[in-house]
């Protein structure tokens, strides 16, 4: 099929989709007039039922926890796939010292790394109180670690991120989530029941399993993105023998 015909067929299909889509959204409740009862029920009840002030995290790690477990394993297997496809242990031997940054860059990167580290940890541990949680905190912690590569060089970055401990933490985060879910069986309760003491609303140690699961997810996301960053960087640095 030639390119011109493909585009013609695409526009035909797009026009059909546009007509049907317009008909479909025409009778939705007008924008800004949300009607569904579920969101309101969640918003009013989760503060009292689960002692969390951030309702989104209460839904993610508790009410909808089974689904999030599935999503977390999508993340886990994706990272596994990337590592299987791209990682080659024979490469990246004898990497010479890469870029040599100026003192100002190193100082700035190290300073912002410290600040971002604190911010990411705060985010991961306070997910049940304020916006944040394991997913956001994990991504911030991992992407902030790229600053090591900027400030120092690839060898330092490699020593930190290719350590077997990172892989173990990734697995630990994924397994921890499942284990917290399974632990409810000890109390003859259904999978992922929030059995831990709920604590005082607004306290860091409140909301029971929500905080624990959030920490597990944070661990896994951090490790996963660190491994992704390392795997992609490794290929470039090891082949060129210098900073990508």
């Amino acid at each position, binding site marked *: 099929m030639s390119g011109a015909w493909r585009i013609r067929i695409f526009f035909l299909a797009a026009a059909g989709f546009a007509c049907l889509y317009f008909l479909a959204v025409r009778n939705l409740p007008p924008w800004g007039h949300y009607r569904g009862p579920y969101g309101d029920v969640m918003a009013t009840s989760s503060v009292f039922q689960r002692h969390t002030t951030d309702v989104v995290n209460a839904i993610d790690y508790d009410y909808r926890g089974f689904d999030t477990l599935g999503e977390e394993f999508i993340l886990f297997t994706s990272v596994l796939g990337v590592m299987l496809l791209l990682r080659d242990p024979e490469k990246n031997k004898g990497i010479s010292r890469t870029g040599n940054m100026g003192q100002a860059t190193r100082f700035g990167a190290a300073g912002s790394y410290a600040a971002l580290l604190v911010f990411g940890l705060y985010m991961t541990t306070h997910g049940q109180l304020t916006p944040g949680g394991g997913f956001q905190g994990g991504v911030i912690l991992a992407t902030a670690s790229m600053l090591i590569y900027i400030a120092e060089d690839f060898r330092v970055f490699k020593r930190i991120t290719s350590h077997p401990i990172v892989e173990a933490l990734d697995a630990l985060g994924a397994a921890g989530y499942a284990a917290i879910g399974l632990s409810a069986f000890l109390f003859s309760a259904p999978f992922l029941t929030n059995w831990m003491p709920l604590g005082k609303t607004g306290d860091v140690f409140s909301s029971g399993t929500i905080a624990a699961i959030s920490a597990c997810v944070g661990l896994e996301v951090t490790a996963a*993105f660190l491994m992704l960053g390392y795997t*992609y960087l490794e290929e470039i640095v090891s082949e060129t023998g210098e900073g990508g």
Partner: protein
Amino acid sequence: MIVFRYLILLLVGITALGVVRTRDTTCQVLALSFYGLLLAVMFFVFQAPDVALSQIAVGAVALPLMVMLALARMKHSSEQQKKKQEAK
């Protein structure tokens, strides 16, 4: 406020077209990064701070970074092949 919300939706629509119409992949990565930031602003404006926080980190930093690194690697491996052919 309502005008601002319509405006940001309009911007998202325009930028989405811009991202797919950019044919040069290096430029497209930058467009994608801008689009990610725009989405983060949209999440903030529509009262979704949780999503906005993850979108800032993922859309503006993590995803473009990975595309950049993948591009760099492919560029490098093609250079490597050229060198091999010349050596032959």
